[in-house]
């Protein structure tokens, strides 16, 4: 868990980038920070690995104040995907990706197998790409390598600063899905900065909305959408997106079967596919479980977590994601 307590950052030129921010990033969850340009997202994130230091307040990682931690050592344990990719152009993909494990003193074979595994996980064929140089890769591939490099040392905390910002919508969607799937396996504490609401809604467990160095709202995607704290948040989400959610939240679950999963945990509450998405949200919340089983037809069961329900609520028409 990462905890900010009354953190203020004032740059030497007087700019106050953060104003008494208190926040928690829960462990094993993906928290998205969202807000307009210049609101302090990058600054906030860089405080976690001490690339920036607070002028007031303290940051705790697992309740240890980070001022007590040695910065080089701390950074090696935190994965970092920077806003502008920043691959080392003179090193091959393999050398780029191996850097942190090497700094950590891992044995060669362990590094090699780890990189191999991560390349495959992010959809990059190791045989094709490991010996190439960054400039021989497309923008999307470079961003994937950026992610591989950040994950290589098996850090528990990963900071990602608008990692998909430079991509075309298709690669972007694809990488978002991949990240989501990856997170299901690796369960890291991820801080994800973005200024794209759709991206945040899609991948985050928790969303933090910021404005001018302050936190406006913290909540799950459903909470932020369903219950914006103030006009700023409402405008930022976009009235359109909120309205879209309402009517379609009234549609039946059975219309969205393709979004749901075929497998899920046993012993969970089952609902009929004829109830509305909105009702399903309520049932899920009351049950206190992670998933809902949905009966469709005679003997078919599909499974949905809050995420899938949210997707359903946001779907404009069958097959078309808002």
């Amino acid at each position, binding site marked *: 868990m990462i905890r900010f307590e009354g953190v203020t950052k004032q740059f030497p030129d007087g700019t106050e980038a953060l104003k008494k921010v208190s926040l928690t990033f829960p462990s094993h969850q993906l928290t998205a920070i969202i807000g307009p340009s210049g609101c302090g997202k990058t600054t906030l994130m860089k405080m976690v690995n001490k*690339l920036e230091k607070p002028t007031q307040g303290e940051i705790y990682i697992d309740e240890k104040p980070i001022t007590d931690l040695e910065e080089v050592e701390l950074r090696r344990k935190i994965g970092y995907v920077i806003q502008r990719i920043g691959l080392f152009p*003179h090193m091959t993909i393999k050398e780029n990706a191996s850097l942190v494990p090497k700094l950590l003193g891992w044995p060669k074979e362990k590094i090699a197998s780890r990189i191999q595994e991560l390349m495959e996980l992010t959809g990059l064929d190791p045989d094709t790409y490991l010996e190439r140089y960054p400039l021989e890769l497309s923008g999307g591939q470079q961003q994937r390598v950026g992610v591989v490099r950040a994950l290589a040392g098996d850090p528990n905390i990963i900071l990602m600063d608008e990692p998909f910002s430079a991509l075309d919508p298709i690669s972007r969607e694809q990488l978002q899905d991949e990240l989501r799937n990856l997170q299901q396996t690796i369960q890291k504490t991820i801080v994800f900065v973005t200024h794209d609401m759709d991206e945040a809604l899609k991948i985050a467990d928790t969303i933090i909305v910021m404005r001018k160095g302050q936190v406006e709202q913290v909540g799950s995607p459903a909470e932020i959408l369903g219950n914006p704290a103030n006009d700023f948040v409402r405008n930022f989400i976009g009235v359109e997106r909120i309205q879209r959610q309402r009517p379609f939240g009234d549609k039946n679950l059975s219309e969205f079967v393709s979004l749901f999963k075929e497998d899920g945990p046993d012993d969970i509450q089952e609902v009929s596919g004829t109830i509305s998405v909105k009702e399903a949200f309520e049932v899920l919340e009351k049950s206190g479980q992670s998933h809902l089983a949905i009966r469709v037809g005679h003997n078919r069961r599909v499974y949905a977590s809050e995420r899938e329900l949210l997707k359903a609520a946001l779907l404009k028409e069958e097959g078309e994601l808002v």
Partner: protein
Amino acid sequence: MNFFDTLVSRQDMIQTAFLEHIYLSFIAVAIGIAIALPTGILIARYRRFAEPIIAVTAIFQTIPSLALFGFLVPLLGIGSPTALIALIIYALLPILRNTYTGITGVDGSVIEAGRGMGMTRTQILRQIELPLALPFIMAGIRTATVLTVGIATLATFVGAGGLGDIIYRGLQSYNNSLVLAGALPVALLAIGFDLILKWIEKRTTPKGLKL
């Protein structure tokens, strides 16, 4: 007397002058690198010192070479050390400036990535900044070498020998062949060094940057 006869009859003298010339240039560039490279690295780290230090070396550079030799003689007398010091002064600027611009020109995002990944300052310098700045540094060394080979021709005026000796003697005795016998090797030396160092420059350009 024809040029080839001159070459043959003055072979020993030309050879000595040639070796002296290479020796002077080589030592001057070597010491120039030893001073300018670390200084360039330092001013790239402590940038507020960069401007004044580069400005001072640039002023030295603008002093006409013959005048600089002239200034040094009253201070240091006549002989190779005087010539060397003058040559070193000229070699400094290209190496210093290129080292500085090479390092400071490394993309900030790359440095930030290195810091964020937990590399120490020394690791960043050795593994990122220097390799990426190397083509610039080599270009600076090449410029310095060519410059030094040319200016070393004036070493003869402070009694430090070199191919300038031959040229000067030829001029004094109205012997065009002798002038040529000194001038030609200087030109060839400059061109030769330029080619060799250009080749090294290409070899040191990191592979990933040549794409």
